[in-house]
């Protein structure tokens, strides 16, 4: 108290501030000299109901950005990450996207977790002509009826998963299924995809139960499920998946019926909250944090080893990496390939970047540890290897790896003319 701010003191503080800035940005400056960074925006749900996924998604983005900057950036320019929190709400997400596009002046965007937020933000990327690489959103329509020239999904979607999984469900488990799904855009579109493929493989969906998002006590809905069928197919994520698995098991449903479902039900970050009630669950996913052959590759080990300590900083329970870390990591790396190929310099080059990303092939390696994939030109949808697994003793056991070529479904997108 009582200390006056003299010119000498102000200069000293200023010098200290510059020094600190030089230390913080030292590695960047050394590597990139005066290169103007590319601004990569990422909108994630860092608070609210989907924070569990947004926080792990951000880890994936940061892993990729750090790797790229350490290895010299893209076209000699570093990546600068601009993070926005959509608070798990579509209206906030849309405002955050507007801010990224206008005030922050991002060059491209990677992210989006909840499908309703991805859908709400699509017009923003179109209006500002910004390439958007989806991080997690799985709603089928994002690359079918609501597809956009500016939006790319570098990971799988429900029709491809259903094509890969339905033969296994019908032939290995049973013909008759009851669907329990999250009653919103992703759950409904995934339900439709699986219903069609189960039927195409000689099976039958005898009933379905929609669970409203965020329902804590699902017992009154689950206790109506009964009758003659072989398996319960779950299309749920986050706390809804945890609630249905716990409460369904308590009602004896998992004793009567085989439990199967989308990989979102049993991501690595969800397993601890379900304990032994998820035992025997058969799922499909693009990434599993285990190294059963053919997953015992240096690229997957390297990805895992980088992700684990970062996730421990996000959550003290030290969760294992999940599909959300993986898909955001690979989306940034796909963008890097596109930027390199197109020579993208600024938003004016977005058409060239789109052209470079359309039909992009990605080869298994440190950038794409989950294997080869292709980003289809007609709908901007990627196809990749699918992993069918069973949960035993609290961990994943790989049952079958389905090559990406066997997951390809016809494109159902018509881009509006630019």
């Amino acid at each position, binding site marked *: 108290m009582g200390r006056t701010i003299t010119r000498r003191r102000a200069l000293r503080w200023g010098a200290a501030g510059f020094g600190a800035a030089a230390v913080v940005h030292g590695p960047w400056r050394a590597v990139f000299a005066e290169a103007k960074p590319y601004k990569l925006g990422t909108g994630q749900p860092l*608070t*609210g*109901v989907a*924070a*569990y*996924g*947004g*926080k*792990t998604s951000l880890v994936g983005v940061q892993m990729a950005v750090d790797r790229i900057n350490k290895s010299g950036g893209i076209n000699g320019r570093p990546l600068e990450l601009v993070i926005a929190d959509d608070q798990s709400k579509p209206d906030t997400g849309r405002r955050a996207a507007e801010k990224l596009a206008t005030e922050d002046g991002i060059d491209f965007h990677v992210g989006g977790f909840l499908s309703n937020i991805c859908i709400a933000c699509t017009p923003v990327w179109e209006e500002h002509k910004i390439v958007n690489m989806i991080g997690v959103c799985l709603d089928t329509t994002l690359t079918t009826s609501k597809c956009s020239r500016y939006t790319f999904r570098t990971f799988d979607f429900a029709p491809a998963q259903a094509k890969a999984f339905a033969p296994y469900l019908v032939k290995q488990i049973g013909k008759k299924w009851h669907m329990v799904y999250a*009653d919103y855009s992703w759950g409904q579109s995934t339900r439709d995809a699986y219903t069609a493929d189960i039927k195409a493989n000689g099976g039958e969906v005898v009933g379905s*139960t*929609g*669970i*409203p998002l*965020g*329902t*804590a*006590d699902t*017992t*009154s*809905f689950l*206790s*109506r499920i*009964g009758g003659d069928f072989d398996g319960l197919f779950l299309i749920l994520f986050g*706390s809804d998946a*945890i*609630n249905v698995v*716990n*409460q369904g098991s*308590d*009602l*004896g449903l998992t*004793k009567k019926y085989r439990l199967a479902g989308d990989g979102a039900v049993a991501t690595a*970050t*969800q397993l*601890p*909250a*379900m*304990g032994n009630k998820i035992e025997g669950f058969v799922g499909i996913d693009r990434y599993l944090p285990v190294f059963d052959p053919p997953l015992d590759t240096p690229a997957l080990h390297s990805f895992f080893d980088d992700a684990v300590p970062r996730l421990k900083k*996000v*959550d*003290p*329970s030290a*969760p294992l990496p999940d599909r959300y870390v993986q898909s955001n990591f690979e989306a940034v790396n796909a963008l890097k390939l596109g930027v390199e190929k197109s020579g993208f310099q600024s938003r004016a080059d977005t058409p060239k970047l789109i052209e470079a990303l359309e039909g992009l092939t990605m080869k298994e390696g440190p950038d794409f540890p989950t294997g080869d994939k292709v980003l289809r030109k007609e709908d901007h949808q990627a196809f990749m290897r699918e992993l069918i697994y069973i949960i035993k003793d609290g961990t994943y056991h790989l049952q079958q790896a389905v090559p990406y070529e066997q997951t390809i479904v016809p494109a159902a997108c018509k881009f509006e003319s630019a």
Partner: protein
Amino acid sequence: MGIPVEQILIQTINGVVTGMILALVASGLTLIFGIMDVVNFAHGELFMLGAYIGVVILAATGDFWIALIAATLVVALLGAAIYLTTLRPLIGRDPLYTILATFGVSLVLQNYALWQFGPVARKIAEPFTGQFTLFYLDYPWYRIVIALLSAAIIGGLWLFLKFGTWGIWIRATTQDRVMAQAMGIPVPWVLMGVFAIGSGMAAASGVLFGPLVGVNHVMGLDWVLKAFIVVVVGGMGNLAGSIAAAIFISLLEAYASLWVSPAQAVIVSFVLLILTLLFRPTGLFVPTPK
């Protein structure tokens, strides 16, 4: 198309069990409103913190019941601290002040939990497992026990309010705060005690309900939303009305799920809320105002 009798009976049991859990959550809320005129928007976060503290104590002791009691006490103390630091200076002012203050507290607690415990959901293991056959279902004993415990806690609260010295002070403060103070009742301490009891009840419900769900930073949202509906339908500040409303609303939703889709069944409680506000704003379970 007829609904099988067994489904109606199952939904009746579901409705009563869920109603008792909801009644426990709502009774803390209604107690705080009835005595302090504070609409506690942080009630869901106290529910959530109770569950998290339950997780921590359960991990340390391995005993669910110790976790239940300790979490209740810790959150009750936290409630007292929240009252002293945030609400006490605002008591007696426009209700909007306390609404905004508790909303602020809810955001702080929610983000504190996210920062402290991380985004990954945790599990509270049930103190016991086991089911009994209920027609075509295996029904978990634990749900029945939660309902009974909720009834016991609410019953204990009623006895405390009816016969305990503090209970009598609380009732006196509810009836006439100024007169109570004039008669020597330490009203500020009574109000603090009420907020602590309400907070402790939220925490107890969080621990009891924890084994059925994953414990995360937003686990209180769905319950507290319903609890607010219960408080309005039951009559603001009316403890018995809240219990009746909790069971009534849960039964309505359970029965509705027999005829309409789950998403539509959830709407029933909101329709009831709107109808109550339109035609009987004092609540369905209070005597007609003279």
